[in-house]
């Protein structure tokens, strides 16, 4: 069942919110020993919230469009009084005194947050193996990684814990795990969804977005979370369309779909190449026109550009974790030693690597050669996307160069791990919306997904294309066991 069906079932008293949450809890209880997708379960809170929804309904009230729907949010989004770990030891014991904007929006819409999901520490990683709370397994093949960094949220949706979940995407952290876990995942336009209460990784790239098993659910969640929020100065103040209305009767007729030839040659996994080609011909059959576009800067320099800007911002954003006010503190006899011990033992290896890289890139004498140059490349990437969108309404490209890899396969090879985001991170650099759409399974049962990218604030166009693809490829089911 998708979220919309659950909400209507509860509204029509076919079943109660408590029953929905109970069944979600039992599914989580039975699969968590294998998957480890949830860092902090919130079962008690969820049940009492479900009861509140049931009470509203019994009193003839409206619990909201997501009334009684179980949801998982990534553990880098603040919830008042609930531990928020970011998958890191350094935040041990910290309970935010406030709710993230998206958490308030979800709860106002009646959603029931049932857990905080596992993630690569501070969202740095592509496999959810860099978590202080242990790795998450891919529900489609538990020997493989779910992707990352929002691997816990992607796995929760794929495993049927919940119909929808929130993740955050700085360089591909929603779209790549969506592809690996066989669900849909959307990174909205930068500035569509408020970042207030999202623990920052790289402020100019971070964006919150939904995972779902249907495009209509995705539109529903986007309607709920994409609000103008004055607390986030980078959040757009313009009015949002009704995304649910935009996808009621999706059509791609007369639209142009851009293909980047360089991206589907080379080292791309053949089954993913096949998925792109199949999607392209299906869109063509639905009345769209396929055109070639070129993104040479993105392909060549996107990755190095990203791996300067993101760590640079992260080095500053993560400086506040010093053990002085909250979280973990390694006691020492003087302040400097306290800083060094706290940060040296509280942060994992990958986070330390990026803090060091970013600190270096911003250091005097290196700033111009690294950070400033990266900003210039970023502008070039923005303008080459703009040129591509003069020819195409959307760009169809891979979400990841590979199928989900095996656990432990890349964990000691950071560069290969970084390559996993080569097709997603240019989209963050340009602030564009990108979506991973599930397109089926390959021969051995691993999921396939493709990425669509649109101009800024054309998120509804992405959803429309995704809706057409979904009507042909079908909705993703849940694993293990299939849909009930």
């Amino acid at each position, binding site marked *: 069942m998708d979220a919309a069906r659950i909400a209507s079932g509860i509204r029509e008293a076919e079943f109660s919110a408590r029953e929905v949450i109970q069944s979600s809890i039992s599914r989580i209880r039975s699969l968590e020993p294998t998957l480890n997708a949830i860092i902090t379960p919130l079962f008690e809170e969820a049940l009492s919230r479900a009861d509140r929804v049931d009470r509203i309904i019994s009193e003839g009230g409206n619990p909201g469009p997501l009334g009684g729907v179980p949801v998982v949010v990534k553990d880098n989004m603040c919830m008042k009084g609930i531990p928020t770990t970011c998958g890191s030891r350094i935040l041990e014991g910290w309970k935010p005194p406030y709710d993230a904007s998206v958490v308030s929006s979800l709860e106002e819409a009646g959603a029931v947050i049932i857990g905080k999901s596992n993630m690569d520490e501070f969202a740095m990683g592509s496999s959810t193996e860099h978590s202080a709370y242990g790795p998450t397994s891919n529900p489609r093949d538990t020997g493989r990684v779910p992707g990352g960094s929002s691997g816990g949220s992607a796995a929760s949706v794929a495993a049927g814990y919940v119909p929808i979940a929130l993740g955050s995407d700085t360089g591909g952290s929603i779209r790549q795990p969506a592809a690996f876990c066989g669900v849909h995942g959307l990174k909205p336009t930068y500035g569509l969804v408020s970042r207030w209460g999202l623990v920052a990784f790289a402020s100019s790239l971070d964006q919150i977005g939904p995972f779902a098993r249907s495009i209509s659910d995705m539109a529903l969640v986007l309607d709920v979370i994409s609000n103008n929020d004055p607390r986030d100065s980078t959040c757009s103040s313009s009015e949002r369309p009704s995304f649910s209305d935009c996808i009621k009767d999706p059509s791609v007729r007369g639209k142009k779909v851009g293909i980047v030839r360089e991206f589907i040659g080379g080292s791309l996994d053949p089954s993913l190449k096949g998925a792109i080609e199949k999607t392209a011909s299906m869109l063509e059959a639905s009345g769209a026109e396929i055109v070639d576009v070129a993104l040479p800067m993105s392909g060549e320099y996107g990755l190095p550009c990203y791996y300067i800007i993101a760590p640079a911002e992260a080095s*500053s954003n993560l400086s506040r974790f010093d053990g002085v006010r909250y979280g973990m503190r390694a006691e020492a006899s*003087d302040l400097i030693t306290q800083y060094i011990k706290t940060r040296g033992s509280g942060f994992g290896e990958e986070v330390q690597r990026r803090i060091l890289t970013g600190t270096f890139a911003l250091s005097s004498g290196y700033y111009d050669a690294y950070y400033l140059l990266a900003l210039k490349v970023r502008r070039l990437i923005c303008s080459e996307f703009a040129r591509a969108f003069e020819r195409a309404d959307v760009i169809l490209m891979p979400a990841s160069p590979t199928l989900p890899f095996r656990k432990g396969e890349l964990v000691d090879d950071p560069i290969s791990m970084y390559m996993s985001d080569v097709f997603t991170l240019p989209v963050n650099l340009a602030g564009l919306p990108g979506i991973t759409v599930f397109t089926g399974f390959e021969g051995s049962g691993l999921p396939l997904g493709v990425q669509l990218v649109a101009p800024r604030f054309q998120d509804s166009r992405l959803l429309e294309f995704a809706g057409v693809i979904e009507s042909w490829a079908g909705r993703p089911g849940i694993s293990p066991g299939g849909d009930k």
Partner: protein
Amino acid sequence: MGLEFETVIGLEVHVQLATRSKLFCPCSTDYIGAEPNSNVCPLCLGLPGTLPSLNRKAIDLGLRAALALKCSINRKTRFHRKNYFYPDLPKAFQISQYDVPLAVSGSMPITIDGRVKNIGITRLHLEEDAGKLVHSTSDGRLSGAMFSLVDYNRSGVPLAEIVSEPELSSSEEAREYVISLRRLVRYLGVSDGDMESGSLRVDANVSQKCSDGRWGNRVEIKNLNSLKALERALEFEISRQRDLLGKGVEIIQETRHWDDGAGVTRSSRGKEEAHDYRYFPEPDLPAIRIQSAEVDRMAGALPELPWEKRERYAKEWGLNLPDASSLSDNPDVAEFFEKTVASGAEPLLAANWIRTEILRLVNENEVKVLDLSVKPEHLSALLNKVRGGDLSNTAAKDVLGVMAKEGIGLSDAMKKAGVREGGFSTDALEEVVRAILEANPSEADLVLGKKDPGDKKRKFLTGLVMREIRGQASPDAVAAAFEGILESREDMGNAHSH
């Protein structure tokens, strides 16, 4: 021998902007006397997930100061992050401005020995304040059972940093610069400019140019918490640098801390020197556009500035420079003065009375000058009576006292003080003089017979007249009345002899 030195000083002044809320969150800026950590929220505590939202009022106040300092305004300005670790800085970076400050290239006149000198202003930028650390040990180490406390009430309070060109050449000039700047920000309502409470803070950069062509390195002095400290620290540092240069020793470029108790500057190597602040543009705040219309509107709304007033008082009303300064120092006093003149008082007389009597009333009653019950038009009417000879100074002071105490107008106050409306006419005054002469015949004869060496008896009689009329006429008027009577007596005497 004969090595001579020229002192070169530049000042960095931080003023706390008079906004009600902090630079990036809605918390109150009123931390004086507040319970530690009571004016805080997740944002100014730097909690994870929080994002800054700019308080436009701080931009407006910064612009107002910048325009008064004749700066050019950057129409597109932005914030940077200045990164460093310290427990009073909860995000471990300060949101400040770097390559594109709000304003650059201005100037401010200061007056030194009656001469005006223009001091260049390099830049004015906005930034957030840090919290306040209270150490349990003097060296700030967190050792043993010792601990440090942090109060974040000040964290995120908006500051404008105003940097001067290195164009001040003595401690007196530096002091005068700070006084002028403080007066300006108070005038503009940009800041309360209070040094004791820390809403105006000064760091000084000082170096020496030697007559043999050598330049001493620049030294930055911090912890200057009063004008006195600024002057003393500069004096100390100037002679320290000159001694070293005289001995051929090079000055180390460093930050030194003023120790007010010991009266010396001490090297504070470490915290400041070791830092590479890794400035980069604040990604959480979009660039700020400042519209030309907005700048024009703010420039048009600037009040007359203290130095402009001073010059006008001197030029148009003939005040000397010290009087012109003292009346223009405080905008309220200036307003009182100008309104008094506008309602008809003679400017020099009004200036004297306001500097003495009115400011005395302000001090005695502990009120603001504009809140006195004596209004400028009351003072003006009173002074016109003094000027017209209808009231002596003494009587006028009595009347002013009654006006202030009772909160009543001039004529009521004169009645209450027993002073007749219109004072004493010449006739009435002469009548009193005659009566006094008749009551004191021996003294009167000596005066009339011009046998009064040194006018002793006349002064005595004048005193009796003044007592009789309770100072309700000016000494000049009384003297004129005496003269009138003496002349008529002489005429009579002459008539008799013919």
